[in-house]
């Protein structure tokens, strides 16, 4: 890399970084990269176009259980020469910092400020890498400034291996994870979809499909998967409630959103790679019967977890992702659609819904382009629509119908440091473009300008 570019980058980082948050010490050299890179000896660009978006090889690395390894280890074998210990001589630990400042078009209420500065917005530690020859992990522990506490974040622990079956390469494995789709390989599904970062002060529509983060960190899922010829992917699994800060086994009636039995999850996808292009089409689904549900309006049932009625959610989604990657240009376009059928026997019975049958649909289309993995940006559009149920959704207009667009420009002085400026414009919010709350507030009052710095090392 030419020295001049580094010098230019350094000065820009200093300027922009000071403008963003003077307290942040921006690294002056890319001397450190996260633990996967340290473990493999591969540069970030092997697995990422621009983090956190994965390249085709990044998907293979993930499917292979994060186990690709190329550094010294402590190890042992038994009498049959089978490996009994395979430890990295350095633990695969990484850290990540997000810090930001936000300005909304209008304060959320008469007592709040239009602006918010978050330092750190999020501070995470990862165990990310090899555990044994066929087992690897992505375990994230996060301090979140909104909760002011430290807790478990996205986690995916895998066993994986590869076999040749009838001439086909088959990567197969098992994932133990805590968020449906966190184990997925593409950026067109909820856990790793756009926007990758947004303002903590951002208003969101009432409710959302279960598969889009509603269960995150409060479930344990076990799924089996296979990736054939780096092209055909299939996965089936089940999720059970695994609450943080509470136990279903003790004082269960005080807990909400408890999965009755198990929630099945399924996923199929097909990716075609040609030249510098790749295109994926996929489908996914989740079914969950929830005991002691909480409605989007905030009404909660706190009853027995034994033989009580449930609210049942059947999510079905389609997704697609196109990528073009060469040394100069990195383009990713993703789109997804999720439909949720809601059978609200518990909420309707408790008077928390005006019908026992509601529905939810979300659609998103996002595109990003980066030049030399250094400068770039993204455009996105998201639409949410629900059935009309003022009691259940708790909105004056009766629905969650919302739509918004997001534009972002990014600068990466190094592959592990991202500076971003994002603007989100709402066209409709909870059922209306204007007076959506019955008190004169417009959807566009929620528009948000958001500047952030995000780095991992």
């Amino acid at each position, binding site marked *: 890399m030419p020295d001049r570019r580094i010098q230019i980058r350094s000065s820009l980082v200093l300027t922009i970084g000071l403008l963003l948050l003077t307290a942040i010490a921006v690294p002056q050299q890319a001397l450190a990269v996260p633990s996967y890179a340290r473990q493999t000896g591969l540069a970030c660009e092997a697995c990422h176009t621009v983090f956190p978006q994965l390249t085709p090889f990044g998907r293979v690395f993930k499917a292979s259980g994060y186990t690709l390894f*190329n550094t010294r280890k402590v190890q042992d074998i038994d009498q049959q020469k089978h490996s009994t210990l395979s430890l990295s001589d350095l633990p695969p630990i990484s850290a990540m910092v997000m810090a930001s400042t936000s300005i909304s078009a209008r304060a959320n209420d008469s007592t709040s400020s239009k602006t918010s500065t978050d330092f750190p917005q999020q501070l995470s530690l990862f165990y990310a890498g090899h555990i044994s020859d066929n087992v690897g992990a992505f375990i994230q522990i996060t301090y979140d400034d909104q909760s002011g506490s430290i807790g478990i974040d996205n986690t995916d622990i895998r066993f994986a291996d590869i076999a040749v079956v009838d001439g086909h390469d088959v990567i197969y494995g098992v994932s133990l994870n805590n968020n449906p789709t966190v184990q997925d390989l593409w950026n067109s599904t909820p856990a790793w979809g756009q926007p990758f970062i947004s303002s903590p002060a951002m208003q969101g529509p009432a409710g959302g499909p279960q598969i889009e983060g509603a269960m995150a960190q409060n479930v344990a899922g076990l799924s089996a998967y296979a990736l054939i010829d780096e092209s055909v992917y299939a996965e089936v699994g089940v999720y059970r409630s695994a609450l943080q800060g509470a136990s279903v086994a003790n004082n269960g009636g005080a807990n909400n959103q408890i999965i009755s039995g198990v929630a099945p999850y399924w996923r199929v996808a097909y990716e075609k790679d040609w030249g510098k292009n790749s295109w994926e089409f996929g489908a996914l689904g989740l079914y969950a019967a929830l005991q002691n549900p909480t409605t989007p309006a905030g009404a909660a049932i706190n009853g027995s977890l034994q033989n009580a009625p449930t609210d049942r959610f059947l999510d079905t989604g389609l997704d697609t992702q196109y990528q073009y990657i060469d040394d100069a240009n990195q383009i990713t376009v993703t789109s997804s659609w999720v439909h949720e059928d809601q059978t609200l026997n518990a909420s309707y019975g408790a008077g928390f819904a005006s019908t026992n049958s509601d529905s939810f649909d979300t659609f998103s289309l996002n595109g990003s382009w980066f030049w030399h993995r250094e400068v770039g940006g993204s455009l996105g559009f998201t639409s949410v629509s629900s059935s009309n149920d003022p009691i259940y959704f708790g909105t004056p207009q009766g629905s969650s119908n919302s739509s918004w667009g997001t534009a972002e420009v990014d600068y990466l002085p190094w592959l592990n440091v991202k500076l971003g400026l994002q603007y989100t414009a709402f066209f409709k919010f909870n059922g209306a473009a204007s007076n959506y709350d019955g008190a004169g507030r417009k959807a566009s009052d929620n528009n948000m300008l958001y500047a952030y710095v995000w780095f991992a090392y």
Partner: protein
Amino acid sequence: MRIVFVAAMAIIACAASPLAMAEETKTVVPAEAISEATSVCQDCHGPQGNSVSATFPRLNGQQADYLALQLKNFRDQKRSDPHARAYMWGMAAQLDDVTIGGLANYYADQKPTQPQTGGALAAEGKNIFMDGVDAQNIPACQACHGDHGEGNGVIPRIAGQHATYLKSQLEAFRSTLRESDVMHANTKDMTDSQIEALVSYLAND
């Protein structure tokens, strides 16, 4: 089972006989040790070196001397095109010469992928491959790479390679992104359409 890369290298090194070490690219190492080492390589280059992704070259049937030379160049950071830096500098960093010899022989012994050729573009490519283009000082590729693109010694097999990989390497030689005085001289006047034709004749994708 995937085994420690470094450990595998050590096993290969220990298993090699003094006689074999004297002739490094002919080193005979236990199949078990090779299997352990290639379990790392196959994450990108596929089982037996027959990669699925065109980002990574096929190694099956590649010339052993070429493979050994490239691995040493990666290890010693003498080959510095972007993909070499991003992928192979790290992966080759801990290889010793004996291991490199064992890996090179293993992949050279695998059945090569044959070209999948045909059509007018491939016919144009065949002409370039067999006869060169005198007006542009493009020599016949077959003079060095063999009548069937099979390579010879440190001259690589190019037949049956991924089209995208072949194309990117020809472009890299042309621009000097991948440094080779010989290949830069051979490709500097090559047009994009001639590269497309040549790749169409040689590749299998």
